[in-house]
């Protein structure tokens, strides 16, 4: 059996590298469209200031993009290096969107980003704008394919288990492609990226306005960011709600955990605004409930019930017992492929095979699992409620805080008096870290909420890892932490330096703070 420490360390390394990678991705997603808006305005109006805006914000975008690329390769390597059994077990399904992402999207954005930076003097205005637009399209397609892969981890449609190859195999590519979970995640995630890009431009522009520098440049940037940001943050919130509605058991379990909903309530269920979840006694010690709201968000109806944690546990207990039979039959079949009785049993219980594998955490031969082990496995199927409950609420609170900011910024942008409102500018500046916090919390809700599975209902996390020594993972973890710390310091140094210097860093002679850097 794989040691628990090995599994925990592998998870920790994945979480650290994924959260770190996700510091750079949202900004890239948002900035590409903001660059498209700025450059389109340049091409339409012919005003040089919009070209300078594209180039200056593009410079900051480039500093961020470099680390996005650097840390993205880690993610691709890591499935193989640290999650070898996962890679074998679901590579037939999960590998395809990753490979197509490279072919369709990442090639496009990476090839064109070179022309974005170096092609200004060699391309016509329209050609360069097309480069920027296709770079943005490539970036967003990239996110689409990654989230199709991720969506399949949450809701593994279009695939079946094969006992001969001992893995999941794709049977319906279109089902994987149009997985409702993937679609909901895609729109929610890219909108979160757009919001991040908008706050980035809004906050730094506010900084120039507070200092009274490069006022025209900052005002034009602020306006674009306010309008783009308002649309984006509305979309995050509305489409986040759509993600909550998504069907599928993984979502139901997550929903119950992040709502601390222990009992199945009569429809429509109430929404716990705040609560103190008590995991041991499976109840909330305190709760402020808003009636009806949860039922409407979760089912889009007034009469459908949402299962509570206790009901989900009972369902899962039955599935574990059925899965126990499936695993036993599978192991017999692997030893003797002619064993038709086992094949029939496996077919009958195949949909619960993953639940049977949960027992492997406690015992090699699942037939000998004790009632205590089964009870533990049942408890494993529900992610810890308190972290889910609070991270989700914090993320939502940040979302509404950003909505308030963008609403106000857009209002004063339309009235044209935002530059005279230091409180607004200061507020915008202080909001700079908020979208990143919200994005990381969102990752946590989605991925921690999927535990104990890597593929919901199919493959438990503890079986997914590579067979490595604990020392190896300590070593690689130390390496990642070391590299990533240095890279972050370097990146932040450059980002702050160029953001502070402002458009003067272009060396055009048109802006404040011009000084030769070389």
């Amino acid at each position: 059996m794989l040691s628990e420490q090995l599994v925990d360390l592998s998870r920790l390394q994945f979480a650290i590298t994924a959260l770190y990678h996700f510091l750079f991705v949202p900004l890239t997603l948002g900035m590409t469209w903001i660059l498209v808006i700025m450059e389109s305005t340049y091409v339409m109006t012919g005003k040089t200031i919009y070209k300078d805006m594209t180039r200056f914000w593009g410079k900051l975008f480039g500093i961020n993009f470099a680390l996005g690329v650097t840390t993205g390769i880690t993610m691709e390597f890591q499935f193989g290096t640290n999650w070898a059994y996962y890679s074998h077990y679901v590579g037939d399904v999960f590998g395809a969107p990753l490979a197509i992402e490279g072919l369709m999207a990442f090639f496009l954005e990476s090839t064109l980003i070179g022309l974005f930076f170096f092609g200004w003097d060699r391309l016509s205005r329209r050609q360069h704008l097309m480069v920027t637009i296709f770079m943005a399209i490539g970036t967003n397609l990239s996110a689409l394919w990654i989230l199709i892969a991720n969506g399949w981890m949450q809701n593994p449609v279009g695939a079946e288990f094969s006992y001969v190859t001992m893995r999941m195999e794709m049977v319906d590519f279109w089902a994987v492609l149009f997985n409702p979970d993937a679609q909901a995640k895609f729109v929610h995630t890219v909108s979160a990226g757009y919001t991040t890009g908008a706050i980035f431009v809004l906050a730094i522009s506010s900084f120039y306005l507070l200092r009274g520098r490069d006022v025209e440049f900052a005002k034009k940037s602020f306006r674009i960011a306010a309008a783009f940001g308002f649309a984006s943050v509305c979309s995050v919130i509305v489409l986040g709600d759509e993600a909550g509605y998504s069907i599928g058991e993984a979502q139901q379990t997550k929903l119950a955990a992040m709502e601390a909903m222990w009992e199945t309530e009569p429809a429509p269920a109430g929404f716990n605004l705040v609560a103190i979840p008590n995991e041991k006694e499976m109840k909330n010690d305190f709760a402020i409930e808003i009636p009806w709201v949860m039922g409407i968000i979760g089912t889009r109806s007034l009469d459908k019930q949402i299962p509570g944690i206790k009901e989900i546990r009972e369902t899962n207990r039955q599935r574990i017992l059925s899965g126990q039979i499936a695993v036993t039959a599978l192991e017999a079949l692997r030893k003797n492929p002619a064993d038709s009785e086992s094949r029939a049993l496996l077919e009958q219980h195949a949909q619960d095979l993953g639940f049977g594998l949960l027992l492997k955490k406690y015992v090699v031969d699942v037939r000998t699992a004790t009632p205590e082990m089964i009870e533990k496995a049942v408890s494993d199927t529900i992610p810890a409620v308190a972290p889910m409950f609070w991270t989700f609420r914090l993320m939502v609170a940040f979302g509404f805080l950003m909505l308030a900011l963008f609403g106000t910024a857009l209002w004063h942008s339309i009235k044209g008096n935002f530059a005279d409102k230091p409180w607004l500018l200061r507020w915008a500046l202080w909001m700079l870290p908020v979208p990143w916090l919200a994005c990381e919390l969102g990752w946590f809700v989605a991925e921690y909420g999927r535990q104990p599975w890597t593929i919901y209902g199919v493959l438990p996390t503890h079986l997914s890892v590579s067979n490595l020594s604990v020392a190896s993972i300590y070593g690689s973890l130390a390496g990642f932490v070391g590299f990533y710390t240095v890279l972050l310091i370097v990146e932040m140094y450059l980002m702050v330096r160029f953001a502070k210097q402002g458009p003067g860093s272009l060396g055009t002679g048109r802006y404040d703070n011009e000084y030769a850097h070389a």
Partner: protein
Amino acid sequence: MLFDYPTLKLIWWLLVGVLLVGFAIMDGHDMGVGTLLPFVAKDDVERRVVINTVGPHWDGNQVWFITGGGAIFAAWPLVYATAFSGFYWAMLAVLWALFFRPVGFDYRSKIANPTWRKTWDWGLFVGGAVPPLIFGVAFGNLFQGVPFYFADNLMPIYTGSFWALLNPFALLCGVVSTAMITFQGATYLMHRTEGDVYRRTQTAMLIFGGLLLLTFSAAGVWLWQGIDGYAIASTVDAGALPNPLDKEVVRQAGAWLANYDKYPATMALPALAYAGTLAAMLLAVNGATLAAFVASSLAIVGVIGTAGVSLFPFVMPSSTDLRSGLTVYDSVSSHLTLNIMLWATLIFMPIIIAYTSWAYKVMAGKVTAAYIRENDHAAY
């Protein structure tokens, strides 16, 4: 579906080869440029000239590597799982070396401090030299077999150590690979530069071209005389559902050369490696740099093709549990996935080649010191 399962398995062996060759030609030339950087450019302007020959392109080129990895994940999941976890520290070394490239290219010239710039120059050297070295070493180990087996549930279990990978034959293959990639970088760099940098690069080109011929020959002789290959002893059902444990494998002297007897046409590949390298050296010395780049790219087709044909049908033989060795027949994805991936490749590869060629066309011409001075703020 257009092709049956056995045919698709072979097509995917070819396609993985195409992606590897594409990676070596495209990402290879900018890695080679990174390796040459500290040696062919003396002052900061010269170094910026060298870096800017690949400045607009390295990022797109690197996607050959990323897509190659993704394609192996999708088409040969067992190879992806076994090789990446087994070669754990080697893969991390590649990964960490690659870390220096995006930040090296993008951050280096943003600050004028000489120590800062020199540090990143060596970073670009590491990012250019280490990955081809390690990939060569990995190939060298494939020829000797890798110590791994599959547990009953097909969990790959690696039983060797990292240091055992660094054996003499594998290191020789590492030199072949590094010489090949640096040679490729040199023909490219000659095409895009002039003056002193051009002259120094020409010298480097001759050195690495010679080294490639020498080490490629030495590795060939060693493989012929000193290394036992592997062969499948049981009958192969190419259309069967992949199960790597369902075969018998034997270790045999000379097995790695058997394909050249069986399919004499494959002799063209090692011949191409020699002809391409020699032609590239000749053409480059005579100033036909673009033709030299094409010739060195053909040499890459020859070298990688030789390795692939020698190993065929193996992809990753096991030295300790022979039947666990992975072949093109039993490490693959399902028929449906191979088919979908084939279509994705057929549709997108021509598009990728089209816009990549366009990007090179837009940026064509020599990178000069004058260009760097004029674009002080915008160039790398």
